[in-house]
């Protein structure tokens, strides 16, 4: 089937979201692992940042892949959300969810919040415009100075709560969309998604909290 027709169907778009979701989950796993280097020491994380620059092809390859993934993920989500809204032009006067988790019901606005956060995060730690004391390729300095400001750390903590919710439903939903379903693996799908949704955001927030508590300075 040509991609145009595939993309034209709602399931096709969902598959695109699932596949780009895998890319993004894979990336944040790498990202959180790298972040934890900060606890090893300034040289570990700064050295890691410098080493990335020695592989420009890989770096830009990953960046392009991520950009494409985010764009596809967001475009598909937006189109599907528009469709879904059109599918129920009159709202119920009373609607009481019976089964869905709050995570699953906040995917759209949570996704928008995460997108805004992503822009801020890039301006903050990659390009530096949103950082008052930014030094290129000095992540240890950039991170510790930023998170000493309580509300900056707060933005990150709130964003990670949103990420946790997005991952909790998104990771599980990915299996469902790709049709990875079997009575033997169904329970494992839920466990896997829960682990990702808890471990990744915890890893991320450990840094601003450590800074706030003075464990990193």
């Amino acid at each position, binding site marked *: *089937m040509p991609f145009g027709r*595939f993309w*034209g*169907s*709602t*399931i*096709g*778009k*969902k*598959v695109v979201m699932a596949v780009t979701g895998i890319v993004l989950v894979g990336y944040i796993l790498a990202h959180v692992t790298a972040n934890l280097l900060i606890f090893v020491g300034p040289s570990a994380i700064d050295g890691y940042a410098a080493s990335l620059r020695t592989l420009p092809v890989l770096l830009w390859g990953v960046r392009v892949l991520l950009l494409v993934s985010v764009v596809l993920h967001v475009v598909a989500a937006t189109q*599907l959300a528009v*469709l*879904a809204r*059109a*599918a*129920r*032009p*009159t*709202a*119920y*006067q*009373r*609607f*009481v*969810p*019976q*089964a*869905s*988790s709050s995570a*699953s*019901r906040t*995917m759209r606005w949570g996704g928008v919040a995460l997108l805004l956060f992503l822009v801020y995060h890039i301006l903050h730690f990659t390009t530096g415009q949103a950082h008052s004391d930014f030094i290129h390729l000095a992540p240890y300095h950039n991170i510790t100075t930023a998170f000493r400001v309580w509300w900056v750390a707060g933005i990150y903590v709130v964003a990670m709560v949103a990420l946790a919710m997005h991952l909790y*439903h998104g990771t*599980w*939903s990915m*299996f*469902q*969309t*790709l*049709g*990875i*379903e079997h009575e033997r693996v*169904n329970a494992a799908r839920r466990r896997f998604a829960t682990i990702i949704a808890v471990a990744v955001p915890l890893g991320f927030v450990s840094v601003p909290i450590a800074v706030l508590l003075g464990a990193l300075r």
Partner: protein
Amino acid sequence: MTMHLKLRVWRQPGPTAAGRFVAYDAPDLSADMSFLEMLDVVNERLIEQGEAPIAFDHDCREGICGSCGLMINGVAHGPMRGTATCQLHLRSFRDGQEVVIEPWRAKAFPVVRDLVVDRSGLDRIIAAGGYISARTGGVPDANAVLVAKDDADSAMDAAACIGCGACVAACPNASASLFAAAKIAHLGLLPQGQPERAKRVLRMVSQMDMEAFGNCTNIGECQEACPKLISIDVIARMNRDFLRASLLGREERVGSSGEG
């Protein structure tokens, strides 16, 4: 013991007319009444007063024809799990309770009158491919093709769908995925359903999209609302079939399908 309910019912005289909620007092009910029998009683009183009765779809009143379906206090088919509106009894409500009754709401289910909606979109999804093309006559002996009991049982689980549309009604996206997927799973689990499996899923999904149903976001409201408790596992199966048919299937040759 008699019961008393305070109803707020969606009244809409016709497809293009404006609708509104109307309050009705429903005294002297019995807890052993079914929900629809309660509406019968209310309607009898309305007719005696010369007013138009509340229109609602119903037929078998034993939970199998799929005609009935009301949004009751924000829950499709009301508070009892795995139960169609016709088999819901007033013992599931408190004396004096307010009960809001709305029609299924979806663009694909336009209101015909009051609580009656047009669900013909579901029929068109089946017509797009929800069948096995077995012409009458000329088929092999029933025991010529064996079906493992587990497969037959799983097919039956999916085939239990009564086509009431509660899945669409309960889905925040008004998606018909559970409905379409149940039929795709029923036929796809059986050996007889294999030859048309790829074509079936592609056509049914395409029809579902054309009918202006929303997409599935895997949130599971549908399986909770389903009077037959059909699992959203069938939706994963439909997605898998769709993916396989899209990636590996051959393009349908024009005029080769034979069955239009």
